[in-house]
């Protein structure tokens, strides 16, 4: 059905249908964010031998995030006197909008996708770079040295880690011969690319955690060092937008990892009777769990080690991965 929609000529009806579908996806993503935050707090709690949220919404704290968001929404909206007002208001929008835009490129199953871009992967990487501007803008517009420091750190980190992130997927592009995410998944029918380019998978995983500004790469908002990073001066709804950006990117990045390396909706051998969308959800949840798991385990990197790690370790390894992938393709995939 979606394939017909994507190939039929454009029109007003078309726009309305896509608007409706987009709204549905937004609701699903918001639901994911709500329960991803809860899951993160729960899993971190279990790892630290405590129960995690267990008051609001029954034993499992099912309404904890809802209550937190409600509290954020009814908070006073403060804008510092000396802040650059237009930029201050624009920054959270500019940070969030790309996070949702990148989701358009991701195919969730054979039939469930919102676009069929021939350069889907490039689109994702290009659009997600805009968020850095939003974060830097937030740091600058707050007129606060802590914010500015956090914003600068964040921009430096996100730009540095974007390079190994992009280079590590070159292997995948070589295997599939396409930038179209659907075709990349189709290319993994027999074997997932994480087995063909394990090096690339590891580099991608590490730099995606850094891209998401999550522990152990959470220097931009290091609670114990900077006051809070780029969003010191933000409160209430605007702050909620930054939080939302972070978790929507978690969704997008986990989905992208699933598509690129874990074989998307392709089933594990002999379990083909389970529908593709469920396979996608399972692999996706595995990645999200891994992110939370790493957060529960690793301490934060030092700022000077952070850049060195990106440029002196990840980048050479990613380059090496290109050569290894070329050899693998030449020897085994002909």
């Amino acid at each position: 059905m979606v394939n017909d929609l994507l190939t039929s000529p454009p029109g007003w009806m078309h726009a309305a249908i896509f608007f409706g579908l987009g709204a549905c996806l937004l609701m699903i993503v918001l639901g994911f964010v709500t329960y991803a935050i809860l899951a993160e707090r729960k899993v971190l709690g279990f790892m630290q031998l405590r129960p995690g949220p267990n008051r609001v919404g029954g034993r499992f704290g099912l309404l904890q995030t809802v209550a937190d968001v409600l509290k954020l929404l009814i908070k006073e909206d403060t804008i510092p006197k000396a802040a650059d007002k237009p930029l201050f208001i624009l920054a959270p929008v500019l940070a969030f909008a790309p996070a949702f835009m990148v989701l358009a490129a991701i195919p969730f199953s054979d039939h469930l996708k919102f676009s069929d871009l021939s350069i889907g992967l490039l689109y994702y990487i290009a659009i997600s770079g805009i968020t850095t501007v939003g974060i830097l803008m937030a740091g600058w517009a707050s007129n606060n040295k802590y914010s500015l420091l956090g914003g600068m750190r964040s921009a430096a980190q996100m730009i540095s880690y974007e390079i190994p992130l992009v280079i590590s997927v070159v292997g995948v592009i070589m295997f599939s011969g396409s930038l179209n995410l659907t075709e990349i998944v189709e290319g993994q029918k027999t074997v997932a690319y994480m087995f063909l380019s394990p090096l690339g998978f590891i580099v991608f995983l590490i730099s995606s955690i850094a891209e998401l500004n999550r522990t152990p790469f959470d220097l931009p908002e290091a609670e114990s060092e900077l006051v809070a990073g780029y969003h010191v001066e933000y409160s209430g709804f605007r702050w909620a937008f930054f939080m939302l950006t972070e978790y929507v990117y978690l969704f997008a990045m986990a989905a992208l990892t699933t598509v690129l390396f874990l074989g998307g909706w392709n089933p594990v051998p002999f379990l083909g009777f389970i529908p593709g969308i469920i396979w996608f959800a399972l692999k996706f949840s595995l990645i999200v769990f891994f992110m939370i798991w790493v957060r529960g385990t690793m301490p934060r990197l030092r700022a000077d080690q952070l850049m060195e790690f990106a440029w002196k370790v990840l980048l050479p390894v990613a380059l090496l991965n290109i050569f290894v992938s070329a050899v693998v393709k030449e020897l085994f995939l002909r």
Partner: protein
Amino acid sequence: MKGLAKGLKYTLSNLTKQNVTTQYPDVPLQMPDRFRGIQKFYPEKCIVCNQCANICPTDCIQLTGNPHPDPGKKGKIIDTYDINFEICILCDLCTEVCPTEAIVMTNNFELAEYSRDELFKDLVWLDENDNNVRKENKA
């Protein structure tokens, strides 16, 4: 690299371990025996010997007794018995010194009140405080 794997393994194994936290306000906390909690008082055992009031280091016990109603019998019976928990330090000395075990410790510890007046516990309250009484009262 080995350290990273070790750390990940440790946090993963923690998932299945018992929590170290308790569900305290929902589930009452069981104190070990010999815990020094709020006293329980048995008026019928008391012989009004005043030893508890004398030994109390903070002078928080006040008691009065009447002569025994049966004129043929010697001794007194207790009339009022108050402990002021604003100053009681739950030191266990009153229960140690009591010759008839008329005052004993319990495992209850919840003394938070909205008013200071409510910390002044009288004979009736101390008599009714009869759950979680300490099993072994000899030191």
